[in-house]
């Protein structure tokens, strides 16, 4: 029986194994146990009979198995992975040391990096250890980064190619009238790229968790009026009906005005990209007993329910072919969500394919400062 188990048996006295050991040795065992328990990686030790002797809390977390269920039994009884079992068996019986990835699924899929090796035994009974790192998040982030880089390159390549072609054409010499058109196009494409870079900077700010400016009283009605005014011409050019409804009194919340403007600009911008000519976008500000609610409704194509759960995720783009000017790093809604939640609010989306989409931003309202009744 491995030495530590003998020592441990002293903690729960076993009449058959009365070995007298010194206090320092017991303290050493307890310290070792505490150390292994504290490790952020899973540690599993199996003895020669294949039974688990060590199964630390990190392993419990990774495999979703309570410690009592794992200890004293064969590993396959609690962690049902043929591959892990095989590797530990190799380590135990053939002394094979191996580090390799492993996928484990008990409801949720985990990607794990697992090192299996024999514990140095020499004369002592054989044991093998598995050290398990949960790299699920790392792999997810790698995939997100790959997608993002691929997204950004694509988004930049398109306008840059257009601009290059137009410049080459201009260099070849064209009519003055045509010149004006080309230059206007170059300007438009450049604006597109600037917008993209601004999205990227927005992302950088999100990730650095920069604190918002100090909060002040902000009238949401006024903010919406400003946002709608800046987009009115664009809506008109696109032949989209843009309407805003606000109550007579100010609707006040504590907030960072510039960030709030960004929220509604992003929501309105998204709507303007997908609503077809002849469509409608409606914005409204409403006062509920304790909350201020801003609603942005459009009767565009709507969002499929499978996508709806993901639209606030960074880099998530529903479908490139839907958007009018298909720029989109998938950050707009992530930024909206981040800012709204920094204000202690919530943002939700409802949508029906073919009917339209409604975004609702709910904030804690301040008591109105302006009198609500004539004196």
């Amino acid at each position, binding site marked *: 029986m491995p030495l530590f188990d003998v020592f441990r048996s002293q903690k729960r006295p076993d009449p058959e194994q009365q070995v007298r050991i010194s206090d320092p040795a017991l303290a050493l065992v307890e310290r070792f146990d505490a150390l292994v328990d504290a490790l952020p990686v899973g540690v599993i030790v199996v003895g020669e009979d*294949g039974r688990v002797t060590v199964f630390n809390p990190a392993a419990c977390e990774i495999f979703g198995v309570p410690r009592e269920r794992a200890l004293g039994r*064969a590993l396959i009884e609690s962690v*049902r992975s043929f591959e892990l079992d095989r590797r530990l068996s190799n380590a135990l019986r053939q002394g094979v040391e191996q580090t390799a990835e492993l996928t484990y699924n008990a409801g949720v899929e985990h990607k794990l990096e697992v090192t299996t090796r024999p514990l140095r035994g020499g004369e002592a009974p054989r044991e093998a250890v598995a050290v398990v790192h949960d790299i699920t998040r790392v792999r997810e982030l790698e995939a997100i980064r790959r997608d993002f880089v691929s997204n950004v390159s694509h988004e930049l390549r398109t306008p840059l190619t257009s601009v290059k072609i137009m410049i080459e054409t201009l260099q070849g010499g064209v009519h003055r009238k045509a010149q004006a058109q080309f230059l206007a196009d170059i300007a438009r494409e450049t604006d597109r790229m600037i917008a993209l870079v601004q999205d990227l900077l927005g992302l950088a700010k999100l990730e650095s968790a920069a604190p918002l400016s100090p909060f002040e009283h902000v009238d949401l009605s006024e903010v919406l009026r400003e946002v709608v005014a800046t987009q009115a011409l664009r809506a008109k050019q696109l032949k989209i009906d843009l309407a805003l409804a606000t109550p007579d009194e100010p609707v006040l919340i504590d907030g960072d005005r510039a960030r709030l403007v960004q929220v509604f600009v992003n929501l309105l911008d998204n709507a303007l990209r997908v609503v077809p000519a002849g469509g409608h976008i409606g914005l409204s500000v409403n006062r509920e007993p304790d909350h201020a609610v801003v609603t942005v409704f459009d009767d565009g194509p709507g969002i499929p329910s*499978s996508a709806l759960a993901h639209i606030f995720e960074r880099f998530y783009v529903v479908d490139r072919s839907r958007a009018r000017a298909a720029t989109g790093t998938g950050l707009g809604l992530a930024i909206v969500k981040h800012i709204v939640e920094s204000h202690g609010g919530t943002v939700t989306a409802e949508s029906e394919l073919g009917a339209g989409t409604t975004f609702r931003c709910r904030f804690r309202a301040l008591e109105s400062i302006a009198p609500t009744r004539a004196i």
Partner: protein
Amino acid sequence: MGRENFHRILDETQQDTLRLGSLVEEATAKAVDALMRSDVKLAEEIIEADDIVDDLCVRVETNCLNLLALQQPMASDLRTIAAMLDIIIDLERIGDHACDIAQITKNLASEPQLKPFIDIPRMAAAAREMLRESLDAFAQHDAGIAHNVPAKDDEVDRLYRAVFKELIEFMAKDPRAINRGSNLILVALYLERIADHATNICERVVYMVEGVPKNLKRSVVEINQAIAHAESMQARSHGESAAS
């Protein structure tokens, strides 16, 4: 064979059954994944890996028969061995169905997807959950877990009927979709069968733990009555045909 040896082999045989369970769980997951992504290479890996499933089944069966023949096991050990003999059959069939799905992935590789997969992944998720829970129940000798599984079979059956109907409509509208549509109906059928096998495993686990016979829905008394009734109906119809 000493008593200690008997229990060692019994434990190892149960562990082998769980290894087998792990393999077919993984085969099912990979088969559906390969189908979703049209991954022919993964599909081929699944088909090749089926050999070890069959080998493990043989090992478990051999050990079970040895244990029965060489030592007269007591009540609960006897039920455990009997349960395992049945369970490995269900697991082996699940492994086969996973291979069938993998084969379909290969067959359909050259064709574009009919429409986004929605119900088939749902069926797969439900079937996998049922399989996982049935194996958890076996691993922990826990009839409570086993009792919860059969109810989920209704959802799988419902999804199967929905997939069937939808694909038939697709094929009726467009004959070019017939090859793909009919193969996907088979996939749905295999997933429905996997869910059924998971339910069977649960029934065996309940039997193993509680000593209750196969059918979870009726008691021994009811079953004996039903058999007696069926036999008397048979006797009556024979009597009538003899008289006329």
